[in-house]
């Protein structure tokens, strides 16, 4: 067992930390308040290769491992949850499935511009009537008679990077089959859809509690024709592709949750040393000390789970349980730690300028998206009782 980071990882962390402090942190309050997508930051991240960290160099990526990628999301989330999820959704939910399931042509056409930072990616599975239960998906893709095009109809909601992305991975059902008991089952497929394709438009922009700068939109497909070669992976295997993609995505979200918790804790440690009540710093009170001790321990445990999951993604073909555990624990840690941090800040904690309240709002989504905490428990227990 070796828990120490390699020199590469330490230096990479320094890079992400410095970038986050200098480029991301100064904008975090404004991004949140104005609900503004941090386009400039994304452009900078694209320039420095942050948008393709775990993708091989031959496809324009940085050729690093999933741990480096997780550390990037973590450091960004320490200062801005919005910026972290932009990278996570782009990398885990769009680049990664194309890398895993795409043909060579698809990789050259879509993956390379994504990793090189020319384009931004998104992923659409969730629908108004289908969240945790994927069978509720209504979006449908039909192959044209000449088999040259798929015609997509339906809508997707709560899509991260929604209106800002250029390339979308869309899950739609392509067939209906009967299972052994004669029940009708939808069979799904995954598609690569480009922004600007006729019939593809945007619906409602969601006004959210947290990660306010991230562009969360409804995607609408009305007789949207996409080339047959944009089918990603095998027809009918879309559900497996989506689930596998989400396994990876959960590592990104777990890293985001970890970063949010760390960011809030770091600020709180600084604050309790300075803030004086009854003639001494509030850090001198045992209640504060014990709370900090608990939080630091939770954060450390979350970090070990997240890094373990990232390592599993690098070394194992199935890492869904590790990812689920990491996301479950990191997300609940983020919510718990940020709530307690706000409390330790007292009145200032409720004020926007001190930022822990934003972290608390940002933390909540990590318990919900890319599989709620309940879904993570289903994944974990499913493996236990198999």
């Amino acid at each position, binding site marked *: 067992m070796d828990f120490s980071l390699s020199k590469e990882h330490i*230096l*990479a962390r320094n890079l992400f930390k*410095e*970038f986050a402090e200098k480029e991301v942190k100064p904008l975090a309050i404004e991004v949140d308040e104005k609900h503004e997508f941090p386009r400039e930051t994304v452009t900078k991240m694209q320039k*420095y*290769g*942050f948008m393709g960290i775990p993708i091989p160099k031959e496809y324009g990526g*940085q050729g*690093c491992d999933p741990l480096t990628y997780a550390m990037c999301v973590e450091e960004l989330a320490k200062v801005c949850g919005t910026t972290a999820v932009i990278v996570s959704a782009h990398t885990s939910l769009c680049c990664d499935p194309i890398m895993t399931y795409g043909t060579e042509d698809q990789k050259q056409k879509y993956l390379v511009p994504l990793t090189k930072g020319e384009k931004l990616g998104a992923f659409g599975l969730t629908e108004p009537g289908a969240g945790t239960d994927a069978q509720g998906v209504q979006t449908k893709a039909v192959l044209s008679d000449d088999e040259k095009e798929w015609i997509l109809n339906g809508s997707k909601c709560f899509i991260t990077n929604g209106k800002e992305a250029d390339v979308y991975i869309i899950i739609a059902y392509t067939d209906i089959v009967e299972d052994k008991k004669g029940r009708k089952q939808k069979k799904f497929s995954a598609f690569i859809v480009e922004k600007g394709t006729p019939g593809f438009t945007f619906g409602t922009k969601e006004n959210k509690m947290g990660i306010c700068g991230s562009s969360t939109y409804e995607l609408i497909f009305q007789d949207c024709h996409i080339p047959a070669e944009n089918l990603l992976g095998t027809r009918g295997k879309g559900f497996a592709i989506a689930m596998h993609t989400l396994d990876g995505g959960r590592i990104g979200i777990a890293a985001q949750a970890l970063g949010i918790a760390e960011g809030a804790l770091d600020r709180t440690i600084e604050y309790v040393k300075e803030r004086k009540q009854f003639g001494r710093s509030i850090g001198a009170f045992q209640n504060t000390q014990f709370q900090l001790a608990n939080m630091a321990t939770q954060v450390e445990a979350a970090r070990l789970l997240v890094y373990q999951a990232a390592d599993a993604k690098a070394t194992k073909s199935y890492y869904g349980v590790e990812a689920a555990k990491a996301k479950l624990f990191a997300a609940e840690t983020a919510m718990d730690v940020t709530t307690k941090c706000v409390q330790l800040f007292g009145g200032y904690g409720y004020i926007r300028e001190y930022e822990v309240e934003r972290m608390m709002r940002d933390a909540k989504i990590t318990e919900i998206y890319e599989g709620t905490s309940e879904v993570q428990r289903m994944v974990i227990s499913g493996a236990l009782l198999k």
Partner: protein
Amino acid sequence: MKIVVCIKQVPDTKGGVKFKPDGTLDRGAMLAIMNPDDKAGLEAALRIKDEDPDNTEVTVVTMGLPKADDILREALAMGADKGLLITDRVLGGADTWATSSTIAGALKNMEYDLIITGRQAIDGDTAQVGPQISEHLNIPVISYAEEIKVDRSAMTVTVKRQFDDRYHMLTAKLPCLVTALSELNEPRYMTPGGIFDAYADADRVQVWGRDKLDVADENIGMAGSPTVIAKASDKVPKGKGEVVTPGSPEEAVDYIVGKLTEKHVI
């Protein structure tokens, strides 16, 4: 064009210098970073390389403990081609004179057209090593560069050099040494892939001991240092000052002016 950039690993004093409970400086608690002026010098070199990447080679050189390898790898991750670490026990305890003669001793065994150093390091703040290296190599120096441009065909460098109330545009023949201000530019970040590449090939950083240096024994290390520290102390954090309630504004002004004069501010 061969560019050598001299860099130094220093404790990060930004965000506060850390003290131990006994009031002495806690170097261990401060992050070791690439000196900011040196980083600006490296950025200047990389921008020259960007103009003609195939015909420009940037080598970073540092003298220090073996762990100074870290900043050389950082420089590689930013885009430098090669690194050289000068490290040897006999080089320890050097003042600026001995440091500059040692680094010059390495440079004499290297090829260079342009040498860039930072103006000064944030630990020593002396601003001496760059100009002293140039003297040991008998090449021109232009310090405090705010802009650097090279003319590859004429083999000259043109530098905007700031003085107190003016600047000079200076042109020197290559080889030349230029010292860079951190105001010169905004250094680029490393890239994640660059970091992994920097470590992937261990040989991109060469390590030279004393035997590889063209310098006399009496000019290196503590023995080769003309200056000696007589006393070093950490500044004691200041306590509460004085508060006065003057009877009139004139009295208040006299008090302030008196203090400013006492402290040589005016």
